[in-house]
């Protein structure tokens, strides 16, 4: 049954919740807002600025599925969750899979904006048009699987777990048990609002303008997916999840070891995907309509993804496959970001134990419960290293711990980390695709030539993809040319790939403006000193030149600040 009283594709309604009063309003955005910001990440940045203008002290929490989320399009599953990060202090977006956005859109909502704070731990239920609240005081300090067992959501649920209850700055929001909105500590934002859980259930279909063209568009896209070795190859993500990257990244000498002190980890071949598969026989699972199903589950729990595997082995010099598995399970159950948790341990080892072995599992438990030595690490490696007057030992950009790709082995990552609006993150510029996976073409990973523009273009493209709700893996197969066809079939609009790029540029710049208002500029768009001083170091002059080119191409000042002319050219509001 299609929704009534709405246009094709978009539902035309956003839910605005005030947790103080437990009341809600319905926002009905004008058409041009949808056309300019699409959905997902785009609408997050739009409404973040709107709310901050109206209520400067408010830290809202936003849940926005992409414009294509909830349709039958493969990879169109993502919900973007957004706020101001307690870890990085930047505007932060986290794309998460599972059924949450799927149900939210089918319930007739293009997003939820949560403001205010509840005095008690409460839950929110959105069932089609109906909105209600429920008591969650008994869920404090419960592990994730127990909370899901207790809730038994009819559709989908987003929860926080033990780490968020105890103030861990890198705590996740957990969706449907196996999907994590990670990295920026959005779980802590949710916990600070007294919101423990959100349940959503939607029973309606997204109205599609042209089903025949949608099917053709899906067929074209799927042909490209089948031809992508990293996605559908027998050693690709469909068989091994992202753990398939472990051998490749190690063999390319890009996997960081010992808190980025080096890139040598001789035990790597014993901790690769093949060994995990043999030790923990798995089954595939994943998001609705996904042809890849990248998650793997065994009787011992979810298998670690690439970054978790690498950081819980090479980064902290752990050679025990069972500890990698247990550390990953513990983080998932307590709701901690695996990259930041491992990075905190790596930094702790370097500064306090001089690389001697420590009880990793015990320390992770202590972090999650903010007890013992773990209490030192709940604000992340950056704060910890500053307290010990050794900020150089935290390998982060803007407070966000770096993932398991050493930029000395692929220079595109250095620009990606420096310019991402999230901090040390590769997913916005996604150099993994062209520097490692050779899509859409291979680029020279030891050169900055052309990388400034590639970084900018990929950031724009991925901002558009995130706003459509498409999984990042999709860019290993298709691009905005195929996306435009899909979006037009769903909405009846007439977007071109170029139009979507323009939307992406607008969305990224808007995020850059928000970060500028939060005090970020070129001094923050930088890498840890270690990358410029060590063996096979990146030439700092080359990096700075590439970053200056990036600012020029992005339309920023030489100090990385937004410009009024560019802001108005992109039809964005200039700073008041």
């Amino acid at each position, binding site marked *: 049954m299609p929704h009534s009283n709405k246009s094709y594709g978009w539902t035309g309604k956003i839910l605005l919740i005030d947790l103080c009063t437990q009341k809600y309003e319905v926002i009905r955005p004008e058409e041009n807002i949808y056309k300019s910001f699409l959905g997902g990440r785009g609408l997050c940045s739009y409404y973040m600025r709107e709310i901050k203008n109206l209520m400067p002290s408010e830290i809202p929490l936003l849940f926005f599925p992409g414009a294509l989320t909830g349709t039958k399009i493969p990879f169109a599953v993502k919900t973007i969750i957004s706020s101001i990060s307690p870890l990085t202090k930047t505007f932060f977006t986290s794309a998460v899979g599972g059924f949450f956005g799927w149900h939210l859109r089918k319930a007739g909502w293009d997003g939820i904006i949560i403001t205010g704070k509840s005095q008690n731990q409460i839950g929110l239920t959105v069932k089609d048009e109906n909105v209600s609240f429920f008591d969650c005081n008994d869920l404090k300090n419960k592990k994730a699987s127990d909370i899901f067992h207790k809730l038994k959501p009819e559709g989908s649920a987003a929860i926080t777990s033990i780490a968020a209850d105890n103030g861990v700055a890198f705590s996740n929001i957990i969706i449907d048990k196996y999907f994590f909105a990670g990295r920026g500590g959005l779980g802590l934002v949710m916990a600070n609002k007294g919101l423990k859980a959100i349940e959503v259930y939607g029973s309606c279909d997204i109205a599609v303008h042209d089903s025949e063209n949608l099917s053709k568009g899906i067929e074209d896209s799927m042909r490209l997916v089948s031809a992508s070795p990293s996605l559908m190859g*027998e050693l690709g993500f469909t068989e091994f999840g992202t753990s398939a990257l472990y051998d490749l990244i190690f063999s390319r000498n890009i996997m960081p070891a010992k808190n980025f002190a080096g890139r040598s980890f001789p035990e790597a071949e014993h901790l690769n995907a*093949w060994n995990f598969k043999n030790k923990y026989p798995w089954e595939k699972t994943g998001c609705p309509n996904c042809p890849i199903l990248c998650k793997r589950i065994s009787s011992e729990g979810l298998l670690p993804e690439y970054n978790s595997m690498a950081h819980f082995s090479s980064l902290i010099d752990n050679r025990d496959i069972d500890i990698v598995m247990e550390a990953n399970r513990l983080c998932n159950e307590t709701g901690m970001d695996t990259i930041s948790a491992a990075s905190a341990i790596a930094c702790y080892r370097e500064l306090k134990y001089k690389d001697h072995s420590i009880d990793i599992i015990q320390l992770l438990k202590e972090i999650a419960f903010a007890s013992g030595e773990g209490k030192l690490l709940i604000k992340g490696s950056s704060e910890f290293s500053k307290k010990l007057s050794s900020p150089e030992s935290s390998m982060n950009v803007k407070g966000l711990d770096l993932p398991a790709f050493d930029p000395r082995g692929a220079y595109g990552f250095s620009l990606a980390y420096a310019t991402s609006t999230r901090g040390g993150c590769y997913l916005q510029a996604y150099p993994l695709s062209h520097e490692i996976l050779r899509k859409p073409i291979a680029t020279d990973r030891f050169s900055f030539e052309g990388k400034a523009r590639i970084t900018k273009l990929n950031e724009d493209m991925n901002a558009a993809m995130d706003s459509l709700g498409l999984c990042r893996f999709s860019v290993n197969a298709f691009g905005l040319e195929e996306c435009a066809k899909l979006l037009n079939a769903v909405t009846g609009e007439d977007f071109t790939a170029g139009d979507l790029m323009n939307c992406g540029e607008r969305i990224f710049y808007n995020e850059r403006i928000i970060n500028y208002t939060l005090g970020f500029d070129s001094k923050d768009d930088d890498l840890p000193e270690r990358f410029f001083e060590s063996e096979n170091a990146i030439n700092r002059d080359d990096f700075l030149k590439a970053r200056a080119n990036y600012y020029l191409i992005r339309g920023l000042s030489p100090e990385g600040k937004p410009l009024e002319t560019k802001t108005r050219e992109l039809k964005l509001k200039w700073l008041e």
Partner: protein
Amino acid sequence: MAGVKEKYLQKLISQRLCNSTDPLVGFLDADLQWNRESDKTEILSQVVNSLGVSAIIYSIPREPYKSMIKYLASYEEKDFLKPEDTETRTFLHDIPIAQNLNVGELTQKLKKRKGLVLKDGSVIAQGAIGVEQAFVTFSSICFSLFVKFMCDFYYHRKNLMKMEGEVEEIAKKAIKCYEDHLLPFDKMPQSPYPFEKEDDAIAAIIEAGSLTVESGLVDSFFGNISCLFENTIYISQTGSSLDELEGYIDPCPIDNSKTNAITASSEFSTHRAIYLKKKFNAILHGHPKFSVIYSMLCDKINCPNRGKCHISCSDRRFMKDVPIVTGEVGRGKNTLLQTVPEYISGRGVIVFGHGVFTAGGSGFYEIFRNLLEIEKEALWAYKDLVF
């Protein structure tokens, strides 16, 4: 980046896609730079700026492409061309036709597609993140439209479709151009076999890949190559140039105990299945034009599978002794993984609208020779059909 610009300019020339004085190659990093001055760069610069892409190639292609493209673009009633080969179906979707070098029209069409052709026969290809991407698109357009013209000409000769104008002259010219390069080619792989060490296997791959391009059988991005040595498959990486394979060969244990092959050719699964099924130790796959064309010729105009022959053709078809099989690129339903390992034997197998796989048990000499022979025989068979 001037080096990259120059590199692909030279590839356009060496692979006989363009004459040396014709191509305009623009690359934008902080500034837009061109390989030479031209009165067209102002318009093309506006197009690049409007699109926000990194690179663009504009050129009248060399003959016979120029005449073929000009013909197809002139007589097509729609504003796009839709060849039915795998290259178009998978990557290009269709090829827009622009009337002339007008900023508005070019921008509008290139916002939707990777490249286009103009009525005068010239080709424009864009690269979102680099010149290489534009080169691949330029090369793909030339290939796909060569294949389309020759297929159309066959149906014209069979009175199954009507082509106006001097099509016979163009077809004859195209065949002559192709023959002039391919037929005299007499180099063969010289790498010793059997391989004694890993380096020998890699060197043999590099040599055979390079010869496959030099012979004119394929343009550099159209194919993949592997060999099996001591339980490891050495295979060209996805998107690599067959004539530049040094450093771009992935060693992949045949038992899949390492996942390095995540960057291997999209046909890795097919190569591996062939090695597991048959006693072969080397495989060469390319997209030579007349093998592709021949595989697409079928007089059953009213066949219910028409339009989806590449996955649904139920006839057992051959080019002489070489089977022609169905299958999409990659792995999954209706892919060539289900057909090629099953049917490959003797000299090789042709995949409908896609290309040729040859495989053997004694290194690359034999399978390179087979690829060359199959293509020559497909060319002669085509000539017999149309003249």
